């Protein structure tokens, strides 16, 4: 059975497999394979079988079962799932009442015929890049289970990389889709800020947060993203834009797209293997132009201030009443964010306006920019410090060095796994102007078509499967 969403949906729609059969095999794969990577925190077996049966019934009665008919998916555990407490990687939120309904994006995928099979591990309240969760354990990288999966949507990336599900949803504030996608060797899409509804997501930093999909191919990202689009009044940040389907345009190639590589800041602070890997992709695409993003380092710093302050404010009552129950990995950073002077936050938000104006000008001269996703591949679980160019850096914190300046501007980014390297995956960010997910996906599809990016299958999990 295929691990690709498009192929699976095609097979279910054609009656080659029943949705129930697909979901039973998926549940068996999760039962057999999750122990090795610790990606799932809940498996929704009962509802999955019921949803799959509904898809089969729709098809049997001649109704359209949807573009994602019978495709199993799972979501980062900050997405509301009706009947479950939304834990967002925390112990504290286990005390919350079960969600009354599914998050908007879950409803949209189910509405397209997909079948929810469970919830996935993450850094507590999304404040991390490594999914080394002290309450629920670290999620392990399917390409080397002694190493991190990346985070904060680590369970989402790992579950897709290990072929437990063909699709997953995560969220991205500072890189939480792109970092784990890169480290686990899968595709991830961080859409434009405001493109997708966040209704029913436990937010982290509301002025930066977005939700988005993971998959094993660009086509799978596109079909999921198309099903997720559309305005939603339940999320005040969600733009009043009609869906702009990307799948029909995916194979249009690179004609008319001006490509460049991010220079300067994005060519420093990482290991040589990362820059060599990005060079493989840019060479394959024939890209020679370099562009500099203005004040990218300041943008990263400003993103850290905004994130720390908004995250701390959201959790302030719990920080006052029950700080000891926070994950030791996040506690001190949340408490520190609560103490930040207001002028830091206001200046960071004003800088953001200046920065977006500059990037708007930059995107008049270029359509799509390539940049590394992370400064190094996945490191061993528990490693605290990473040395890069003689400098000792916080191993997890520095993972966001290339993702944070892009999300702070709200830009859409595809993280794509670079082909022909190894054994550990690395990713390239394919960055477009606001609302131009279509261009980022088209470039990713063109790179995939010439073999420059591809999602590798893990080789070290055979014993577990």
């Amino acid at each position, binding site marked *: 059975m295929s691990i690709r969403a498009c192929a699976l949906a095609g097979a279910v729609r054609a009656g080659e497999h029943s949705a129930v059969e697909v979901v039973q095999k998926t549940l068996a794969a999760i039962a057999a394979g999750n122990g090795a990577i610790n990606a799932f925190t809940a498996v929704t077996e009962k509802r999955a079988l019921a949803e799959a049966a509904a898809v089969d019934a729709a098809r049997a009665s001649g109704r359209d079962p949807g573009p994602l008919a019978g495709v199993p998916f799972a979501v980062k555990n900050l997405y509301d799932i009706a009947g479950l407490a939304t834990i967002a990687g925390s112990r504290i939120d286990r005390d919350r009442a079960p969600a009354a309904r599914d998050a908007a994006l879950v409803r949209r995928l189910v509405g397209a015929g997909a079948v929810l099979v469970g919830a996935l591990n993450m850094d507590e309240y999304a404040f991390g890049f490594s999914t080394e969760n002290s309450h629920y354990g670290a999620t392990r990288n399917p390409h080397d289970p002694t190493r991190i999966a990346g985070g904060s949507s680590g369970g989402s990336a790992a579950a897709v990389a290990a072929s437990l599900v063909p699709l997953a949803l995560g969220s991205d504030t500072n890189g939480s889709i792109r970092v784990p996608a890169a480290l686990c060797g899968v595709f991830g899409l961080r859409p434009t800020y*405001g493109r997708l509804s966040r209704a029913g997501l436990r937010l982290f930093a509301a*002025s930066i947060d977005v939700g988005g999909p993971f998959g094993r191919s660009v086509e799978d990202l596109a079909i999921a993203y198309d099903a997720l689009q559309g305005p939603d*009044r*339940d999320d*005040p*940040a969600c733009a*009043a834009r009609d869906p702009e389907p990307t799948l029909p345009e995916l194979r249009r190639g690179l004609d008319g797209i001006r490509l460049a590589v991010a220079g300067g800041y994005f060519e420093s602070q990482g290991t040589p293997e990362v820059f060599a890997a990005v060079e493989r992709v840019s060479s394959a695409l024939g890209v020679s132009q370099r562009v500099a993003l203005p*004040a990218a*380092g*300041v943008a990263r*710093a*400003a993103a*850290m*201030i905004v994130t*720390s302050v908004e995250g701390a404010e959201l959790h*302030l009552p719990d*920080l*006052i009443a029950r*700080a*000891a129950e926070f994950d030791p990995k996040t*506690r*001190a*950073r949340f*408490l*520190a*964010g*609560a*103490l*930040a*002077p207001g*002028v*830091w936050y*206001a*200046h*960071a*938000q*004003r*800088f*953001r*306006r*200046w920065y*977006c104006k500059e990037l708007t000008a930059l995107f008049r001269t270029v359509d799509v920019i390539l940049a590394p996703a992370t400064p190094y591949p996945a490191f061993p679980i528990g490693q605290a410090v990473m040395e890069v160019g003689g400098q000792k850096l916080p191993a997890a914190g520095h993972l966001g060095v290339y993702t944070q300046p892009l999300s702070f501007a709200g830009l859409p980014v595809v993280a794509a796994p670079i082909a022909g390297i190894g054994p550990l995956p690395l990713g390239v960010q394919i960055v477009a102007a606001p609302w131009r997910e279509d261009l980022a996906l088209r470039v990713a599809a063109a790179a995939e078509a010439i073999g420059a990016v591809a999602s590798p299958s893990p080789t070290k999990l055979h014993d577990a499967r």
Partner: protein
Amino acid sequence: MAEPVDPAQYVPRAAALLGLPLTPEDRDNVIGAFAVLARVAGVVMAFPLPEEIVAAAAFTPDDGSAP
């Protein structure tokens, strides 16, 4: 740009003002985390911005649900 505050002095006082209890163990970790944040803030605050640059607020003067 110099750090605007001394974390070891500032953190216990600001936490007390907010009613944020810090255990002795947390206190040192928070001072360390705040020192990192203060260095990061130094980068942001050192970037001069014209007064006419206003924050890109998504604020709408209603409950956000209007079409």
